[in-house]
C-alpha cells in the first residue's frame, strides 16, 4: 500500500467510518490498517491520474453479439439485400450519414451526435482467428490478448495497475451485477454501483397516464421486457481473478472498498443534478447516474455500463430495434448532459460487442454468431467520421459466412489509452498497436 492510497483512506476513516454513520462493526482488516495509518506521515499528494479534472472513458458493452450489419448499414448493396431478404433495412428507412452508409432508423440520437461532430464510427473491428463463443470472445475483448492466448488480467485492470496504482477502488465504476472481466488486475480495483436497485429492466411510466407512483411501478412489472429474442445472453462477465490473494483477503479488501466508496459516491451524487431528461430505461437511468457522478467530481477514470439481449437468433427485427433505440436515446441524453456540464471534452464513450452476426439471416428471422462489426466512439474530443472500411459482403470475401475485420480492436484500445487517457499503451496491451485517427 503506498501513500496515495493511505491518504484517501485516512481521510475517510477520520471523517466517515468512525463517525458512526455506518452501522457495521470494525473489520479486522481495518483495525490492522488503522494502526499502520496512524504511523504514517500526512501530506502525500494525490497523483495526477486521480485528479478530478482528468479525462474519462465510458465503456458500453452490448452483450450477446450486436448485429453490426443492421446497425451501420451499407446502402445500395445487392449482397446485403440478398443475404437479408427479411431483416434487411431499406435504403429509404435508414438514417443516411454518407452516400454509402446509414444508421439503423432507431439510432436517431446517434445520427444527430454525428451531425454535431461528436460521433466516430469505426467499421470492421475485430481480431484475427475470431471465436464465435460469447464467453470466449468476451474474454478476448476483455483481456485484449491474441485469440489463442489467455490472461488473468483485463486491459482496464492493467491500465489501473500501470497508471493508477495509488488510486482508490472507485477509479473504476461499473453499473452491473458483477465486475467486468476487463477490470481484473494484479491489484483489484473497481466498485459496483447499482443506482435503482430494481430487478426489472424498465421502470417507465406510461405516457399520459396519471398513475400514482405505486401504480406506475406495478405497471413496470407488467411491461414487455423484449424477452422474446436474444434472451439467452443478458449480462456477460468473466470469472474474477484473485491474483495472489485468498478469497478471504479479497473479501476483506472488498469490505473496505465498499465502505470508502459508498461515502465518496454518496457525496458526489448529492452534489449534482442532471440538466436534461434521460430515458426511463434501465440503461438511460444508469447513464443519468454516471453523468451525475462525473458532474459531482468523482475521481473515476473508467465507467463501465452494459446492455444485454443482443443474441438475436430468432425474431430479431423488433428486439434489435428496441435495443438500439434504448442505446441511442440513452447515449444522446448522456452527451447532451455532459455538454451542459462542460464535461463533454473530458469524456469518450466507446461501445463494443463480443462479435457481430452472420451476414446471411437464418430461418427463424434471426442471425447466428458472426465476427467483425462496427463500434462507436463519442465525445467532445472525438472527430466525427467513418473510419476503417465497410467490410465486403461478397461471398468470396467472407470467412465461414462472416465479414472479415480490418481494424484490430486493440488499435481502438491503444487510441483511447494514448490519445484520450494519456498513457503509453504498449505496457497495457503488451504489444504496439497503431492508433487510429479519431481525435482531432
Amino acid at each position, binding site marked *: 500500500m503506498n501513500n496515495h492510497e493511505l491518504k484517501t483512506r485516512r481521510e475517510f476513516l477520520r471523517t466517515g467510518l468512525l463517525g458512526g454513520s455506518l*452501522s*457495521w*462493526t470494525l*473489520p*479486522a*482488516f481495518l*483495525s*490492522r490498517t488503522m494502526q499502520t495509518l496512524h504511523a504514517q506521515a500526512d501530506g502525500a499528494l494525490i497523483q495526477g491520474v486521480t485528479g478530478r479534472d482528468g479525462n474519462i472513458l465510458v465503456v458500453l458493452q452490448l452483450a450477446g453479439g450486436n448485429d453490426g450489419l443492421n446497425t451501420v448499414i451499407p446502402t445500395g448493396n445487392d449482397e446485403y439485400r440478398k443475404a437479408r431478404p427479411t431483416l434487411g433495412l431499406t435504403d429509404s428507412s435508414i438514417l443516411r450519414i454518407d452516400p454509402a452508409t446509414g444508421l439503423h432508423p432507431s439510432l436517431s440520437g446517434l445520427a444527430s451526435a454525428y451531425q454535431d461532430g461528436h460521433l466516430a464510427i469505426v467499421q470492421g473491428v475485430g481480431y484475427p482467428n475470431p*471465436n464465435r*463463443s460469447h*464467453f470466449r470472445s468476451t474474454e478476448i475483448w476483455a483481456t485484449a490478448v491474441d485469440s489463442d492466448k489467455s490472461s488473468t488480467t483485463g486491459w482496464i485492470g492493467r491500465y489501473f495497475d500501470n497508471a493508477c496504482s495509488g488510486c482508490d*477502488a472507485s477509479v473504476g465504476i461499473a453499473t452491473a451485477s*458483477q*465486475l467486468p472481466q476487463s477490470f481484473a488486475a494484479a491489484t483489484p480495483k*473497481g*466498485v*459496483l*454501483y447499482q443506482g435503482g*436497485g430494481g*430487478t426489472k429492466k424498465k421502470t417507465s411510466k406510461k405516457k399520459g397516464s396519471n398513475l400514482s407512483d*405505486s*401504480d406506475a*411501478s*406495478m*405497471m413496470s*412489472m*407488467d411491461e*414487455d*421486457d423484449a*424477452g*422474446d429474442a436474444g*434472451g*439467452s445472453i*443478458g*449480462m*456477460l*462477465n*468473466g*470469472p*474474477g481473478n*484473485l491474483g495472489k490473494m*485468498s*478469497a*478471504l483477503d479479497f*473479501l476483506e479488501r*472488498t*469490505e473496505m472498498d*465498499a465502505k470508502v*466508496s*459508498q461515502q465518496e459516491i454518496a457525496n458526489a451524487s448529492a452534489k449534482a443534478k442532471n440538466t436534461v431528461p434521460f430515458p426511463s430505461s434501465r440503461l438511460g437511468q444508469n447513464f443519468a447516474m454516471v453523468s451525475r457522478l462525473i458532474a459531482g467530481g468523482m475521481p473515476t477514470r473508467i465507467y463501465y455500463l452494459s446492455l*444485454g439481449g443482443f443474441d438475436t*437468433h*430468432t*425474431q430479431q427485427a423488433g428486439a434489435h430495434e428496441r435495443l438500439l433505440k434504448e442505446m441511442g436515446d440513452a447515449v444522446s441524453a448522456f452527451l447532451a448532459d455532459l455538454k451542459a456540464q462542460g464535461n463533454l471534452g473530458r469524456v469518450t464513450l466507446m461501445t463494443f460487442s463480443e462479435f457481430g452476426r452472420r451476414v446471411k439471416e*437464418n*430461418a*427463424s428471422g*434471426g442471425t*447466428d*454468431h458472426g465476427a467483425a462489426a462496427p463500434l462507436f466512439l463519442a465525445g467532445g474530443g472525438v472527430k466525427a467520421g467513418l473510419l476503417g472500411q465497410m467490410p465486403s459482403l461478397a461471398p468470396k470475401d467472407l470467412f465461414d459466412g462472416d465479414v472479415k475485420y480490418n481494424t484490430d480492436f486493440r488499435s481502438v484500445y491503444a487510441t483511447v489509452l494514448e490519445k484520450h487517457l494519456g498513457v503509453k499503451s504498449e505496457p497495457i496491451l503488451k504489444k504496439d498497436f497503431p492508433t487510429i485517427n479519431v481525435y482531432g
Partner: protein
Amino acid sequence: MLSTLTASDWDRNKAGILLQRAGFSGTPEEVDALASLSPTEAADFLLGPAKFLPPDPPAFLQESSMEEALKSERVKFNSLSDSAKADAKKEVAQYLRANQGRQMTELRGWWLKQMAEPARAAREKLTLFLHGHFATSFEKVRSPHLLYQQNSLFREKGYGMWSDLVLGVAQDPAMLLYLDGAKSRAEAPNENFARELFELFTLGEGNYTEKDIQESARAFTGWGIGAEKGKKGGLQRGSYPSFKNVPKWHDSGSKTIFGETGNFDGSDVVRLALAQAAAPRWIAQKLWRFYAGWPAPEPLLQELVKEWQALKGQIRPFLMAMWTNPNFYDPIRAADRVKSPTEWLVGLCRQLGRPLPAPVLSSHALSLLGQNLFEPPNVKGWDGGIAWINTSSISRRYEYGSWLVDGTQGLQKLSTLNMAKMAGESGLLKMSLPEISPEGVVIPHGIKDMDPVEKQAATEKMRETLSLPPAPVAGIATSEERQSAEKLLASLSSRFLFGETIPEDLRARFQQAAGDKIPFTDAAVRKMILAIVQSPLYQVT
C-alpha cells in the same frame, strides 16, 4: 481412483463443512449427528435415498391454464371493434404478465422451502448446481410452468446417469425455447443449442469445431415442442407444451460429427459428445469446483475423471466419492469457497432456527445479492466463487444479515421497498381478467382499476407479512454460555463457523460486540451473532 477419509480423520469441523457444502448448513445437533457417523455414512445419509420422493408441487400448478381462462371470452372478443380489440389485447397481456410474475415468486419461494428441508437439502443443492449448469431463464422462456418442469427434471434425474440427464435437458421444453431448438428447422438449422451443449454443458471450449456445431444443429432439427403457439410464437396463451419429435422438421441427410458419419439425430449427438475424452473432465471439474469451491489441479482432476469413468457417469455415487475425499477438506483451501447468495440465505435461516422470509422478500434479496433464481445472467449460469463478492453485494449481505438476526424493526429497515409492487408479486393484490360487457366495451381489471380501499388493505397485509421479528436466540445460548464472552463465542462459532480457526483480531471484535454486561441478554447475544455474520469469515466455507 479417489482415496477416502478414514473414520479417524473425521471430526465435527469436517462434518460442519460437509453439511454446508453438500446441503444448506443446519443446526449444531445436525452437525453432531453427522460427526458421529463414518465419513461414508455421513455422505450417504445427507444424500438420502436414491429413490426419488417428489415434494408436493407449488399451488399455482393447479390453476387453470390461460387458454382455458380466455376461452369463454374469445367469442365476445371476436365481435369487438378493432380499437376495442387492441385495448382488450393490451389488458390481457398485462394480466398475463402480472400473473407470471406472481407465479414466479411462488415458484422461487417453493424451491427455497425445499432447500430448507434437512432431508431434501442435498438433492436440492444438486438441483441448484444443475440449474446453474444448464442455465435457463424466465426472461426468455416466460413460462413458470415450464421452468418448474425443468426444475423437477433436475430433482428427479439428478442422482442418476449423466447421459440420461443431458438427453433429458436436450428434450426439455424450457431449454428448447431458451436456446431456440423449438424453432430450428431442416431448411435453416439454429446453432444456438448445439453450440452451448458442447461449450457449456458437456465439453468446454476448444473441444469441438464450428463444423461439429453446424452438423449437430442439423441433427437436432425435428426436436421441438408440441402445443399450439400464440401469435408471437410464444406460449403465453397455449396449453402447456411438451417435447415433440417432428420428422418433417428433421434434416435426415448424412452428417459428420466428431469424425463419425451417419444419419444422426439429437440422441446421437448427445451420445457422441459424451464419448469425447473432454466430457468426463468437464463435468467432474464443474462438480468439484461447485462443491469444493476451487478448481481441482491436474493430479486430482485425473483421479476424479477415473472415478467418474469407473462409476459410468452415475452422479450420486460420484458425489459421495468427492465428499469423502481428503482433498475436499484441505485446510489450506478452507477459506476459498465463497457461499452463494442462496446458500447464504437458507443457511443463515437454518442456523438461526428461523423460518425463511416471505417468498417475495427472499426473491428480492437474492436478486440484489446476484442470484435471482430462474433468471441466471446468461446461458453460462452464475460464475460463482469471488464473482459473488463486490462492493455492492457485500454491503447488501451485511444489511440483509441484520434483518435476519435483529429483525426489520417493523418496517423501518424495509422502507425503500415498494409495498404495492410486492403485494402484486406475492398475490395479495390479484388482477383478474378484463371483461367484455354486453355492449362490447372492455372493462379492465388491472391493479390501477382496483378499489383504493382494497389496494390499501393488501398493502397493509404485505407490510405485516414482510416485517421480520428478531431471531429467536433464547435457545441458542445457555445461561452458562452467557457468563463470559469467551464461552459465548465458543458456542456461537460452533454454530455459525463450525469451530473454524478465528484470527485473533477477529475474535476480539466478536467478543467486544456483545458488550460487557454479564450475563448476556438476548440482545447482546444477537449483537455477537451479527458481528459474526457481518464478517468476511462468515461468507466462506
